[in-house]
């Protein structure tokens, strides 16, 4: 019997050519390109094409993809009706999980394809914006075909176009978060796809996994924690008190990176430019947190993760904090669907083993005779 590895840490579950997390050197690589070379140069659309097709698009291909995305921003009637049936105070991640599920119903058990990936990716911002408008008791805003993916998302959320700087920041965020190796939500999507289930099913499962605070659910918690620290007077005293109470610092540590997360580096710089108030506190908290964590575990490589400065960037973009994780999903859907396509192309059902730790076989007692 092979031995149990908690969390499958270090166990290779798939071969992939989509992205690689090189934790030793602090590199994230999409299809051969280092993230720092893509982040501020490429549109989300170009990166989605890269993840799906394995190469960057030329002008004609990018135009075709942009048109295809723009043409699939509207929700189906069923999805709109289901969205309207959810109470306005529902967690937007639950809204996304439910409405993506309805939106995909028309495809039944279709084999995953790039067009289906495009259609799903196009629908995420619409679902979120429609629900946000409903929460505010405002009319939904129709998608605008002339706007790119990031710009249109903000336009549908706010009812007006955002400044180029804000759009560019959201675009960079979407590029940075579009894929990240065999993370838990991507792995969920691949497990689902491995049963020959459909793309929608895989995406719905991935959304459910991303919702967890140990995965995508952290950025809004980062902000809440920073607010508490900021209100407390002396941050260091407060933070040492937190550790005494066994509270976790949010936004630190990652299973794979042994050095600074390359995405966090870019987001930190964006934060410094766009959200100085957040940055001043966050940079101070970061310095103290890393110092305390290093005192506690000098043997462990402690570093800031992508969630920490994501929070400040998304706040500067003007997104409400309940929409931080769903916006993460709107980026990652490109990666999820690329992984589903790859899984479907080289499929083998993912069915690991478990080790039984229960009692040895015994006979059941009939109901009337049980204590």
């Amino acid at each position: 019997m092979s031995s149990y590895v908690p969390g499958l840490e270090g166990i290779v579950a798939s071969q992939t050519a989509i992205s690689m997390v090189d934790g030793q050197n602090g590199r994230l690589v999409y299809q051969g390109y280092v993230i720092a070379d893509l982040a501020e140069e490429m549109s989300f659309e170009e990166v989605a094409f890269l993840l799906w097709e394995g190469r960057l698009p030329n002008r004609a291909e990018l135009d075709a993809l942009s048109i295809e995305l723009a043409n699939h921003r509207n929700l189906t009637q069923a999805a709109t009706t289901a969205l309207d049936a959810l109470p306005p105070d529902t967690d937007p991640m639950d809204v996304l999980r439910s409405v993506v599920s309805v939106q995909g119903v028309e495809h039944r058990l279709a084999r995953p394809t790039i067009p289906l990936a495009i259609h799903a990716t196009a629908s995420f911002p619409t679902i979120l914006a429609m629900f946000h408008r409903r929460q505010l008791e405002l009319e939904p805003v129709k998608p605008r075909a002339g706007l790119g993916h990031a710009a249109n998302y903000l336009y549908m959320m706010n009812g007006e176009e955002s400044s180029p700087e804000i759009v560019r920041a959201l675009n960079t965020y979407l590029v940075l978060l579009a894929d990240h190796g065999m993370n838990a939500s991507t792995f969920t999507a691949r497990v689902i796809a491995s049963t020959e289930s459909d793309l929608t099913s895989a995406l719905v499962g991935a959304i459910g996994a991303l919702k967890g605070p140990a995965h995508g659910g952290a950025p809004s918690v980062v902000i809440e924690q920073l607010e508490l620290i900021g209100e407390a007077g002396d941050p260091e005293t407060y933070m040492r008190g937190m550790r005494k109470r066994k509270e976790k610092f949010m936004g630190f540590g990652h299973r794979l990176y042994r050095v600074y997360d390359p995405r966090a580096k870019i987001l930190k710089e964006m934060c410094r430019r766009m959200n100085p108030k957040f940055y001043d506190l966050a940079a101070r908290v970061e310095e103290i947190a890393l110092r305390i964590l290093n005192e506690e575990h000098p043997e462990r490589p402690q570093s800031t993760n992508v969630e920490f400065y994501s929070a400040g960037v998304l706040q500067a973009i003007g997104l409400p904090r309940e929409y931080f994780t769903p916006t993460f999903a709107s980026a990652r859907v490109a990666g999820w669907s690329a992984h589903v396509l790859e899984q479907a192309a080289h499929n083998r059902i993912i069915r690991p083993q478990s080790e039984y730790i229960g009692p040895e076989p015994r006979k059941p007692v009939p109901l009337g005779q049980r204590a």
Partner: protein
Amino acid sequence: MADFSPGLEGVVAAETAVSEVDGANGRLIYRGGYLIEDLVPVVSYEEVAYLLWHGELPNESQLDALSEEMAGARALNESARGSLTAIDAADDPMDILRTVVSAQGATKTLIKPSLEEAVALTAVFPTIVGATWRRRLRKEVMEPRSDLGHAANLLWMMNGEEPSAEKAHWLDTYLVLLADHGLNASTFAARVVASTGSDLTSCVVGAIAALKGPAHGGATLAARNMLDKIGSADNAERWLTEAHARHERFSGFGHRVYRTYDPRAKILREMAKTAAPELYTTAAKTEEVALRILHEAHPDRPNATNVDFWASVVLTGVGIPKELFTTIFATSRVAGWTAHVLESLSDLRLIRPASRWVGPQPGKKPLQLAKR
């Protein structure tokens, strides 16, 4: 670099006391150490759900309390009803189930998985499946009956009439048999979702999504479709020989784990004789011929009938339309899914495996758009 085992075959991804598939000896052990063939004659589905959740079989008062709690949780909430009616009745019942469960469990804030929620989710599956079928028939959706057990209520909600004791019993036995099965793909999906600290609904929705796949939960329907194509015992030899010559897979045969006859298939096979005598005759002949052909082709492989093959015959005898087979499977397995999630909470650790890079050498520089 660690070895790569495609499909994680042979890799231990969890420790569990919920169930154990002892493939070498053809044994399925449920929580508490009970062999499936020992449980079937003495327990109902509700008792097995209790067992999987608590680790012990319930006594009479515990069972009454659970039955009452489940009967009280059968209704759909407003969000779920809204989703159900939004979807076309002709759409895939698994898509309907995935969506309506998602809506039923939509909440304002993230709720940690609990036993209470496991009971409530399990209770609502028959309501969704029943309503799905009634809508497809363009008939009035039935209200759940709190005086009926889990299996009988499911048939009531589908058919609008109380089932015979026999049919309710056959379905109940099917539900007992399928309630858990080690770390299968859907259960594993649920555990991966749970490992992020997500909520129980997200875990169950992910599991439904995985069960939908033809290589997993869809196999019962595939087995029945094959039997439909064969049509009669007389045709089995010819059909299977031709299908084999076309390199078609026989649905309902083979399993990654069992090296002997699946103990659940054995029980279902016996029940099928009375539940669906006509289809049984075709199925028995099909099994005989299929196993012979498979053995001749691969004498080295342990080829045995799997649970899907005989489940498709028994469910037919119960009067379940084949379009609903996978949703009925889900209706059973949700007890196991939720038990696994609850078990994993005691030592929650993010499931995040590694991947092996097979892409281009990192570091190539992107060309400007205009130069591509």
